[in-house]
């Protein structure tokens, strides 16, 4: 379990993280969303124990992560700009990891090599960007980490590789209850694998949601009445957004779907449909609720 409490990080006088708190359950995948410069990378590096927060606590399994070798042995951080020692081949790099991480799994290394079809004796810097990304995951997963911290891992990758990498992550999460934290500036890139999403903007965490809960909790409803609509209907419901097109009302309503249905049925609508919402739509309406336009924060 990753727990971040009231973390403040300053670079000189600028607040890069301003009172950030979040919690990630074991075996879940957490997506951290935010535009460039929102503080995503800083938060991830703080969680990875690379940089130290000025205030607050960053704990894994209720122990501070900074300078904690026992925890860092079970964690891998993959930065947005990959780093390999210059002129190192995959094998040399693997030997390095093997010397540093005690849980290194050589069998898995061989297995993945066959699946990847990459020459382990070639210098990594000669590989293409996508191949280097695969090498990074190859090495990271052979460490058998319990925590995997990924900074913009899918940026600029083609869909095939993206899917491959996602499947590896999901597999480890399912089999070994690995905990993953993924940052992105694009919601659609991560919505299919994340269990929970947090949105960070100018160093502050604006919103944190469990996706299953979110999807079952918000509904798009189309209703039409023969006569004028009784305005008390909307008072009974938690309406996030409403608009009228001709005689049809389109509303975004929060609440249990059965309860919503029961209430609306009492008013005898002529038309009544509950439609599915995309995750992006959900966020647009949620953010409206807290006073932000999502277009300004996410693409």
């Amino acid at each position, binding site marked *: 379990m990753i727990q971040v409490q009231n973390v403040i990080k300053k670079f000189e006088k600028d607040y890069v993280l301003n009172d950030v708190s979040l919690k990630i359950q074991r075996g879940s995948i957490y997506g951290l969303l935010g535009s460039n410069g929102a503080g995503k990378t800083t938060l991830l590096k703080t969680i990875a124990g690379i940089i130290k927060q000025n205030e607050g606590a960053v704990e894994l399994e209720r122990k501070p992560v900074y*300078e904690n070798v026992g925890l860092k042995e079970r964690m891998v951080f993959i*930065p947005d700009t990959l780093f390999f020692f210059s002129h190192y081949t995959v094998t040399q790099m693997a030997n390095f990891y093997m*010397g540093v991480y005690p849980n290194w799994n050589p069998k898995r290394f061989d297995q993945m090599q066959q699946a990847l079809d990459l020459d382990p004796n070639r210098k990594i810097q000669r590989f293409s960007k996508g191949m280097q990304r695969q090498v990074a995951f190859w090495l990271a997963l052979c460490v058998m980490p319990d925590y995997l911290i990924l900074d913009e891992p899918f940026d600029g990758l083609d869909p095939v590789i993206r899917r491959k990498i996602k499947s590896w992550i999901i597999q480890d999460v399912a089999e070994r209850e690995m905990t993953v934290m993924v940052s992105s500036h694009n919601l659609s890139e991560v919505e299919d694998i994340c269990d929970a999403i947090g949105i960070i903007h100018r160093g502050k965490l604006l919103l944190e949601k469990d996706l299953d809960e979110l999807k079952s909790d918000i509904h798009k409803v189309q209703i039409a009445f023969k006569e004028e609509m009784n305005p008390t209907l909307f008072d009974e419901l938690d309406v996030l957004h409403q608009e009228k097109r001709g005689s049809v009302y389109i509303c975004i309503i929060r609440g249990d779907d059965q309860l919503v249905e029961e209430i609306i049925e009492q008013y005898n609508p002529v038309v009544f449909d509950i439609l599915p919402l995309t995750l992006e739509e959900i966020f647009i309406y949620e953010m409206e609720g807290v006073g932000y336009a999502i277009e300004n924060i996410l693409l």
Partner: protein
Amino acid sequence: MPSKTSYFKRELWKQAFRSFGWVGIGYFLALLFLLPLQIIMVKTKNDPDDINYYREHVDSFFGINGDIQGMLFLIIPVLAAVFTCRYMHVKGSADFMHSLPLRRSQLFTHQFLIGYMMILIPVCITVCILFVMSGVMDVEFIYQNKDILNWFYETLTFTTFVYTIAYCVGTLTGMSVVQGGLSLIFIIFPAGISVLINENLNMLLEGFSVHHSSFFSYSSNLTPIWWFMELSNKSNLEMANWLYGIYWLLSIAFIGISLILYRIRPIESANQTIAFPLLKPIFKFGVTFCFMLLGGGYFGAAQGQSEGWIMFGYICGALFGYLLAKMLIQKTWRVFDQWKGFMIYIGISIVVILSIMFDWYGFETNVPDEGEVEGIYFVDQSTFNNWYSGSEDQELEQSNITNPELIEKIINLHDYIIANDHIGQPQGVTYTEKSTDIDIIYHLENGSRLAREYFIPSIDEVEQYVRPILESKAYKQSSLNWLYDNNIRISSVAVSGYDYRQRVTDQQTINKISNALKQDYLDTSYEEMMQGSYGERKSLDFELKSEQEHFRQLPILDSYSKVLEVLDQEELDRGLTLHSTDVSMIAITNSTQNEEMFYELPHREDIDLNEWMLVEDSEQIEELISLDKEASGTWELAFYGPYENDFIDSYKVQEDQLPSYVKEYFE
């Protein structure tokens, strides 16, 4: 679950060696070529001259390519430190290395040692090779086993010191280039800053003595470059043993500081000039201060220490330093927007500088009372017998004047200098025949020392104070302490005359000459001492058996009757007297009217007949040669030989000694 990892990470060593092992290999090759190979070359060439040279002049391994070794002492440790610290200066690698499951102290230990091996292992291998060589071939004439160990210890002392400084700087900064530059600056900093402060105080304070400022000798001792520069003209490091200890202690201190800094170092500071925000203002104003001193020193020296130019130099220097520091910190040249810090700095500086200039601390007017003074070390730098090197500490520790009457004279002289504004001022110094520098070092009853140095534009003005001091036995003995000190052995004396030079190595004759000189010198008059050694063609050249400054030269004055007698007895007086047959012309002038002529006796074709009288008649020459020299005389006689520009000698006589035809000529 017990951890199966060990503290030692082999992979870190492998990685480091792969990326900068060349530093160590290069160093080893350089040492190999500089020492073992050089020795083998000498050995195989087997040239008796070379072998003799090594036997006589090479006392240690620093005698073999010592200057290059000195350069390597500087370059290699800095390179090693720059490359070992590089992992924390490059952003990607800094993040990566610190995401690994390694404690900071562990990473530090590994990296520090890896770099240190680059300077340790090559030296160790070289030492082994040298030992093996001394076992299998005859190299006794160059070195013995004890020399190897000395070299090992000395080399390691310096390289370790430089390496730890450079490493410490590496933890302070986030850029490799800055690390390299700052390391070199740190290494020369102690000597550099003390030179700057001394020179500036010297300009601002009347009487400030650069030579006797103990600050400088300490700080230059701690500047290894000082010793490396010495290596280029010496074959051994003449460094006191306790200094080695200091170097090691400082090295350990730098390691400790590095570790502490590294543990709190923000990793995100990779790529920044200064890694710790707290240090930025210190860096900024430190650079400003140094450049301010440099600017003031430069313009002061170039413009004859005029106060206006010094102030101009301070402001220009400070401005330049401030902007430079800001540019370095912000890594852009467009830094012209914030001036508040600079204004505060300038304000404080002006107050400090004015307080020194107007002597609020009472430095200039501080003259001790007679009762407080235990003794004085007094030096008049114009007298011909002063060999004077500022750092001879043992000289400063003793007094040469302890007689209460003379102490009173010196204090009166000191009072007189302070009371008269035109004496002793650091501004507008022009050296003339009569000018001199006077050093007064008081040793006070309470054990402290008070050193002052004054420029005296004309010694005549203070003659009444200076004469009894210079004529005193104590002063004379201290000014030629090498002669009067029985512990110093003289290995040879050469007698130089007008056209002849004889060298004496016989110890008995040497003793006779030096004993006669000891007596004669005590009888020397004030005028003769003030005459200076200029123009004196007859001299005794002593070679001393001591570590430094082997040669001393003293003129043979006509008044040295005992010396001349000994030389006559020993038949060493050839060429000491000028005969009329050697002289083809004498030029005569009145030196009170032509003081500057003293330094530049004209070539024969340039002589202005209004100022000079030329005598070529042999009878007249005979008459003029026989005149007795008078050091206090006002007329100058210059003697020329038969060849073009063949100047022989010149000396002074009194006006009443001159024959009537000379006086008539000038009327």
